[in-house]
């Protein structure tokens, strides 16, 4: 097994009196899909936002490629090669696909936007992901379907030669065919050697694409298991009770502080 690309060590995070994350440890391997599961309010999205630099962490260490790093904002994360695809997409409706993919990191030539260069790069990226559903890269995002938007959001993350992509419920609002597209895309990301973290509530999705399942329970990491070693039922128990047989948190009482 290769070295993890991203390691979290003892991450803690509170919002005022609410202790949301307790001593979270997590390794993300390149070329693997790590599913992050947990019930509503378990802290999945908060953990992702901490990694992305949107929320500062209270304590704990983040190692990237074995080096300790300090992520203070979205830009720091992006510079390391950590990209996040958010649940609510984070695309600007009034801009087209190219403009969205380069948002915040426009390529310029002599101080002016280099539109042709950006357009070529966007097309190349979409082609490399075998995206064939978008009519034109100059289509406004407002006229895309949910699946197409999700595709654009993921392609945006790939555009930056990123090393780690975090996907926050990418299939939550999608139909069957669109979910298929997005899951294929997730698999393709891992095949390209990226470390992928997938947040999902859907066990079918998780078992289909994930190599490893990390289970959050009330802000604690209940277990990190290999997909092939567990059953649906065990994962559901881990999500709802924090333990399943030998797996999970030893005494559930300890978790209810």
């Amino acid at each position, binding site marked *: 097994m290769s070295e993890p690309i991203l390691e979290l060590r003892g991450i803690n995070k509170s919002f005022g009196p609410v202790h949301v994350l307790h001593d979270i440890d997590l390794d993300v391997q390149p070329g693997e899909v790590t599913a992050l599961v947990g019930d509503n309010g378990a802290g999945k999205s908060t953990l992702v936002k901490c990694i992305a630099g949107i929320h500062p962490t209270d304590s704990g260490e983040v190692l990237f490629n074995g080096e300790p790093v300090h992520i203070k904002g979205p830009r720091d994360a*992006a510079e390391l090669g950590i990209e996040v695809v958010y649940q609510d997409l*984070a695309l600007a409706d009034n*801009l087209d696909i190219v403009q969205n993919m380069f948002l*915040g990191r426009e390529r310029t030539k002599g101080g002016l*936007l280099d539109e042709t260069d950006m357009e070529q790069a966007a097309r190349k990226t979409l*082609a490399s992901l075998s995206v*064939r559903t978008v009519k*034109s*890269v100059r289509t406004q995002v407002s*006229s895309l379907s949910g699946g197409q938007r999700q595709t654009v959001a993921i392609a945006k993350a790939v555009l930056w030669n990123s090393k780690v992509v975090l996907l926050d419920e990418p299939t939550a609002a999608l139909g069957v065919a669109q979910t298929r597209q997005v899951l294929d895309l997730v698999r393709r990301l891992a095949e390209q050697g990226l470390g992928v973290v997938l947040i999902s509530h859907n066990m079918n999705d998780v078992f289909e694409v994930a190599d490893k399942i990390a289970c959050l329970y009330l802000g604690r990491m209940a277990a990190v298991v290999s997909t092939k070693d567990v059953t649906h039922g065990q994962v559901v128990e881990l999500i709802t009770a924090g333990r399943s047989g030998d797996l999970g948190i030893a005494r559930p009482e300890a978790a209810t502080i």
Partner: protein
Amino acid sequence: MSSEEASMTDTTDTHEQETAQQGAISDFGIDTTSQSTGEAVRDYWARVRGGELGSLPALLGLVVLLIVFSSLSDTFFTLGNLANLLQQGASITIIAMGLVFVLLLGEIDLSAGTASGVTAAVMALHLIHNGNLLGGMGDTVFYVFCGLLVLAIVLGAVMKVWAGVALSAVALVIAGVGIPANAWLEMLLAVCVGAAIGTITGFLVAKVGIPSFVVTLAFFLVWGGVVLQLIGQGGTLGLRDDTIFNVANGNLNFVGSWALFVIAVGGYAAIVLTRHFSRLRKGLVAQPTSLVLGKIGALAVLAAVITYALSLNRAPSDLIVIEGVPYVVPLVLVLLVVGTFVLDRTSYGRHIYAVGGNKEAARRAGINVERIRMSVFVIASAAAAIGAIVYSSKVGSVDPNAGGGNTLLLSVGAAVIGGTSLFGGKGRLRDAVIGGAVLAIIQNGMGLLRQPAAVVFIVTGLVLLLAASVDALSRRRAATAAR
């Protein structure tokens, strides 16, 4: 200077490139849009039907108004009146152009009108008192004024809005040093004071987080009071200076008029063609070359006709000669070109659209949203100051009501009538110019028809209402067409 279709149909292809493109298209599975001129036009029509109207309704309205007033009034469609129209509409148009930046973020600046009045008053005081603002304002007012400029510098520095800092600093220097009156210096002072005002407004909106409606409503009242304080109840500050007078009343000479024509049309053609052929060369989809050339040709003919007409003598009596393109035309053109350039071709402009479209997305993309929000108020107030220079020049004086009354409402109206959305994220600078022209024609035409003020107000208001309805309906249409 309409490149209406340029933005609308740039996802089309040419016949010449069709074969070269075919391979690439099947590889990518994207960008398989129309190829011929006919298809490009159909494509554009489909977008219009889908709710992307842009400034089309305003352009149609402009044509209708021109026809109606020309048929009802003998004097409307005369050279003298048309040139007058340009000079009357310029100040509202310029203020509206600044407001477009604010409206693009879904914010509003209600104080732009009275803020412009303040800049006009400061400009006039500097001129009349030969650079001695201390004497012109009185001790207390002068020190408060300088204090506010320092505050603007500090707030701008905190938020790293350097343009606001620099312009406020220039205003402070001009105010403090007391250089003798000079028309150019006074106009610079007005713009700098405008920028300082915008810096303070922007800070309160972006950093403190007060809704822009409330901040600018408060400043609307405050600046109205400041103008009154600076000028004095019932007083009027005359602007007896040829340079300032010429801004809104002067004309380019014959050579200058045609030089403007060559620069404007040549520049437009150069920019459009460079972009067009660079896209073709790189194998990206572009409009048909014939369509691009046709648009440039149409613009050149229109501009030539206007330039020719304006370079004829239009004086009402034989004793004097009035000819040439009014100075306000190159002024508005330069502002339009520079502003459009900033919005379309720089990262800053792109970020304005992004923040207006989805603030959260922009923040997550690493854009400094607060800074963008603050900066647009600086631009709006600075533009308002340029508008103030024009309207003060037109009447030759500054009175306590400068920038009050309808100035602001007409400016917002001009931007909205042109197609700028009040919901943010949608609009272009040329909207303000087209909308400004519509309003100027209504005011001028109704005046020529000897309609009472009551009717003029009611008609203007109804036109604004119509424009806002078109925006709302086209938005709904676009929303349903998208699914």
